[in-house]
């Protein structure tokens, strides 16, 4: 049951983030939301015992591709200041909160048993990776990624001036 709930939450976050990214009017907002989608995909792979794929996804999409799209956006000047600035910031905060909530849920779901992979029930086995590999490091990493991305995209309007 808990297993399905985590999968549904992660899938819903993924769909919501991608659709918001594609529907956003400003390209810089789309870029931030797509960055969050890459992180969610990496978290999905990591939670379901495929750490290598999760790492490759995060490095490739959240790292390299995001920076390439950002440089193209800067070069082509697509990030004009829009009137929907407050809305886009709200969307960014909502997507970030969703990622943190899902990660926190996964952490707290695995905490009471405290069983690393190999013991406990099926859901504990799946979530065991996060418990074994120090969950707060992963959360802090996600927050640092998100904060650096927000800082860089906040510099875009300054660049335009």
């Amino acid at each position, binding site marked *: 049951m808990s297993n399905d709930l985590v999968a549904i939450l992660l899938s819903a976050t993924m769909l919501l983030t991608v659709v918001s990214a594609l529907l956003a009017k400003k390209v810089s907002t789309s870029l931030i939301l797509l960055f969050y989608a*890459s992180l969610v995909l990496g978290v999905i792979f990591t939670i379901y015992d495929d750490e290598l794929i999760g790492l490759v996804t995060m490095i490739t999409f959240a790292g390299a591709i995001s920076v390439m799209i950002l440089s193209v956006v800067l070069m082509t000047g697509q990030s004009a200041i829009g009137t929907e600035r407050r809305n886009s910031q709200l969307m960014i905060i909502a997507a970030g909160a969703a990622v943190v909530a899902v990660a926190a849920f996964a952490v707290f779901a695995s905490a009471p048993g405290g069983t690393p992979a190999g013991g406990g029930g099926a859901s504990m086995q799946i979530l065991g990776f996060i418990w074994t590999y120090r969950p707060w490091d992963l959360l802090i990493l996600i927050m640092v990624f998100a904060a650096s991305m927000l800082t860089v995209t906040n510099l875009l309007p300054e660049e335009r001036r």
Partner: protein
Amino acid sequence: MIGPQLIFLVTGTMLVFIGIVFIAYSRNMVKSVMSFQAVLFGANLALFASVLGGAGGDRRLMGDSFIIFSILVGASVEAVGLALIAAIHRRYGTLNPEEIRRLRH
């Protein structure tokens, strides 16, 4: 009991179709590349779901290899697409495909 395999398979398929629709209707080429990235996410998630319920071993290893191959090919395609976008913007001054088609003639 649905199971994570079916959930991720459905999510991946939905992402692929959403991405294709947005590629078709997008008026900005950077947005088209982003839609392609959504298609890639969906394909990777569906590939991952297809090996999730297996017994492990060779099948899991083959699935992982396919996913890494897909990620690398997709990233390369996106890089080429972004380079083309930069070149097109330098030449035509716009990223709207209809305007580019009009300016070409």
